[in-house]
């Protein structure tokens, strides 16, 4: 072929490509223009609830919202749990975050990031939800329509509501009722801890008799310690009650963790305290009901063991209920965690009884990003999500317990409703999950001495005792540094709020300053208590 002809063909192809590209761009531009003319708005919201039922529920809520607001399209972005924190931070920092985001606190999101990347929703929380019109919640401020008073969406240090929750999660024991019937001849779920222990023996007898390997409890690193820590907590309720001055009760163990740590350093309790020993014995007893190596198992491994009928019980949260029910080929029963009562002959002496769930905070919280192109529409969608009807769709399809007062609950969801009758918890083996990192590490690296086949509470305590006090001191130093930083950061906020209030720069300045001061005082007190505990130790 002659070079001239080849050039002509080449230029022709280039021209065709250029024209095709131009035509595509023009068509695409026309479509965009058409879309803007029709004023359709798209709202995107991201979450990490990939459990069965959750995505379907969000889809239906979006669909119902579009029916009410035909010019709005709502798109959900389900992101896997493993990558969610990194994804979230990248989107926020990159300015590409969707309109609404489910926030995971401490996993990449802290107060600064909330303030920087999200919009306060306090005005929304203070006003009635228009989507509740015609219901008994009509005219009631949004925050008052939540079981928890919308505490789950309130950020103490920022003195603002920043998020809207959708569910009040709880943890329960899931039973394989078919297996239970085979083992005991009935599907009666034990009511007491003593009864539960008898059931565990019968599982072992059945397993030996039938020649099948069945474990009483399917354990994983996440749910096994959650269960055993709660039981330990129950054993230390009376100890903590006696340590607290003049009968004061704190709502949770985080509130009084620094005091408990300083009590330990002052010799007011120890690993040899009878209640603490009893707690470790109880942990060991339960650990022996789980499959070997449970501390290294993932949540999915334990679920598989339960689904295959190789374990009678699994401990999990309401978020897993629909997934477990859909995958199981047997009927599933539910019961609260088995707490020994004061009447229990072995473990009754130190306990008050099962814990109260009355103060559980609502979770799965959605916040509005500052870079939302349509903040008003996104806020309106949040109101629908938090309405009685929106929450009804949520609970009906997801199988999760609701967050909004008066939402009807199906029979199979009812066992997940928080149990109000109960007591405040005591200590955890690591005092508290909040801040006590060295103590947690000290315990977890020695748990094989407690849970192993030749383990015992005695072996664990003897190994941990020489390290326990130093770990507390190291954690208190970290807590002190962290509180010092919070208090320093609060100073700029305090100064600004004071200036705004003194010069009447915003309408709600006095209220914010007042709230801030009370909240900051709690941090100040914790800081000074920590400093004093460390000074006394030196």
């Amino acid at each position, binding site marked *: 072929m002659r070079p001239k002809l080849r050039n002509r063909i080449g230029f022709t192809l280039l021209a065709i490509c250029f024209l095709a590209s131009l035509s595509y761009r023009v068509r695409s531009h026309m479509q965009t223009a058409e879309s803007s003319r029709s004023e359709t708005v798209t709202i995107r919201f991201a979450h990490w609830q990939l459990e069965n039922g959750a995505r379907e529920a969000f889809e239906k809520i979006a669909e119902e919202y579009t029916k009410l607001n035909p010019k709005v399209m709502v798109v959900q972005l389900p992101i896997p749990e493993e990558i969610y924190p990194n994804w979230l931070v990248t989107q926020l920092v990159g300015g590409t975050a969707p309109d609404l985001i489910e926030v995971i606190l401490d996993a990449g999101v802290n*107060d600064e990031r909330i*303030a*920087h990347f999200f919009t306060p929703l306090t005005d929304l929380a203070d006003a009635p939800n228009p989507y509740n019109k015609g219901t008994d919640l009509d005219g009631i401020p949004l925050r008052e329509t939540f*079981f928890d*008073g919308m505490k789950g969406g309130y950020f103490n240090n*920022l003195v603002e509501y920043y998020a809207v929750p959708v569910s009040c999660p709880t943890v329960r024991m899931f039973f394989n009722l078919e297996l239970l019937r085979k083992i005991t001849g009935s599907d009666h779920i034990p009511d007491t801890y003593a009864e539960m222990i008898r059931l565990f023996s019968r599982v072992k007898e059945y397993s030996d008799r039938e020649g099948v390997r069945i474990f009483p409890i399917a354990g994983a690193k996440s749910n096994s310690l959650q269960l055993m820590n709660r039981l330990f907590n129950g054993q230390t309720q009376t100890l903590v009650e006696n340590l607290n*001055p*003049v*009968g*004061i*009760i*704190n*709502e*949770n163990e985080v509130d009084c963790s620094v005091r408990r740590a300083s009590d330990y350093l002052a010799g007011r309790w120890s690993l040899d305290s009878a209640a603490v020993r009893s707690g470790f014995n109880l942990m060991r007893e339960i650990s022996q009901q789980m499959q070997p190596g449970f501390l290294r198992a993932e949540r999915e491994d334990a679920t598989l063991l339960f689904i295959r009928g190789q374990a009678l019980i699994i401990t999990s949260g309401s978020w897993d209920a629909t997934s477990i029910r859909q995958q199981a080929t047997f009927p599933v029963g539910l019961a609260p965690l088995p707490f020994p009562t004061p009447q229990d002959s072995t473990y009754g002496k130190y306990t008050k009884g099962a814990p*109260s*769930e*009355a*103060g559980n905070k609502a979770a799965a919280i959605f916040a509005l990003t500052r870079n939302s192109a349509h903040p008003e529409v996104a806020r309106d969608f949040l109101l629908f999500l938090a309405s009685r009807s929106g929450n009804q769709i949520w609970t009906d399809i997801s199988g999760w317990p609701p967050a909004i007062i008066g939402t009807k609950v199906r029979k199979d969801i009812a066992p997940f409703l928080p149990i*109000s*009758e*109960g*007591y*405040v918890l005591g200590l955890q083996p690591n005092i508290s999950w909040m801040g006590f990192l060295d103590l947690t590490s000290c315990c977890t690296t020695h748990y094989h001495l407690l849970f192993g086949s030749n383990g015992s509470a005695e072996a664990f305590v003897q190994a941990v005792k020489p390290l326990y006090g130093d770990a507390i001191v190291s954690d208190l130093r970290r807590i002190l540094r962290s509180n010092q930083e919070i*208090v*320093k*950061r609060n*100073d*700029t*906020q305090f*100064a*600004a*709020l*004071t*200036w*705004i*209030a*003194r*010069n*009447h*720069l*915003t309408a709600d300045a*006095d*209220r*914010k*300053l*007042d*709230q801030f*001061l*009370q*909240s900051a*005082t*709690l941090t*100040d*007190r914790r800081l*000074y*208590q920590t*400093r*004093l505990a460390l*000074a*006394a130790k030196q």
Partner: protein
Amino acid sequence: MNEVRTASFTGPNIFQVRLYLFARGRFIAGWFFGLIGEHSLRVVLLVATSCLAGAENVQTVSPLRPAWQDAAHFLATDANKSFTQARSHPEVNVGERELGEAITLLNVQPRTAGNILRAREILGKYAAEASAEETSIFARYFLARVYEAFEEPAQPEKALAIYKELVDRYSGDSLAEHSASRLVFIELYDDISSKERDRRFAELEELAPKLKSTMGRRDYHLNMGNAYIDFGGSPVKAIAHLLAAETDGITNRDVEAATWIAIAELGRGEGEIDLARAYYRKFLAKYERDNRHYTIQQRLEALPLAK
């Protein structure tokens, strides 16, 4: 707070509208061509906002309001840039701008000794200005905070001296009276003997009559009451302080719930059964969704019957 100034908004005149549109035009142009930075834009918008607000309102609505709001939302670095860049703004009050710069410098990241020193210098300058009392109180309080929390090593004696002076001299000012709370923490949560702590408790008790602002007084009483509990001090005094704090108005739910339980428990211990009963009932009525509800219900039922 202390002084009430009412802002009365009037409609913009045609000149102001033109100026606003001009500023908006700059904003759009800047947005597209990246000719001016985000913080310059803020200043441009500040000019537009202040012009639109009308001549008589320029004195009441500070053009630095967005910067203060950023600072109130933990955005110290952004706020500091706005305060710094407003230096050449003709409508901005120099004192307000410099104090804003100082308090944000304390938390500009990374925190440097140079920034803390500059903040201390600014605060020191305004603390010494006796003519502007409110500004001086503001500067003194945060100067004390710099000595107490930001300087390395800390200079608690200097902080204590300022806090004491603020409480003594500026009765009725809520910020000055907040110093009383700081004195409670610094003096009592110290590694000292019980005897010395008792002496300090007695000294701090003398502050009560001086406090006139509700917020300053409430927080002082709250912290004194809790300190008596923390150090096993007089339950009668603890009750008195907590009741006084409640009278001044506790609005934070967590603080209110904890205070009511403390009053009831202290009352129960002192044989003040009616007081205990009243506060148990108040708690039960308001805090139904609280982990302590069931326990408090039981404690109420266990109280001896009223005579």
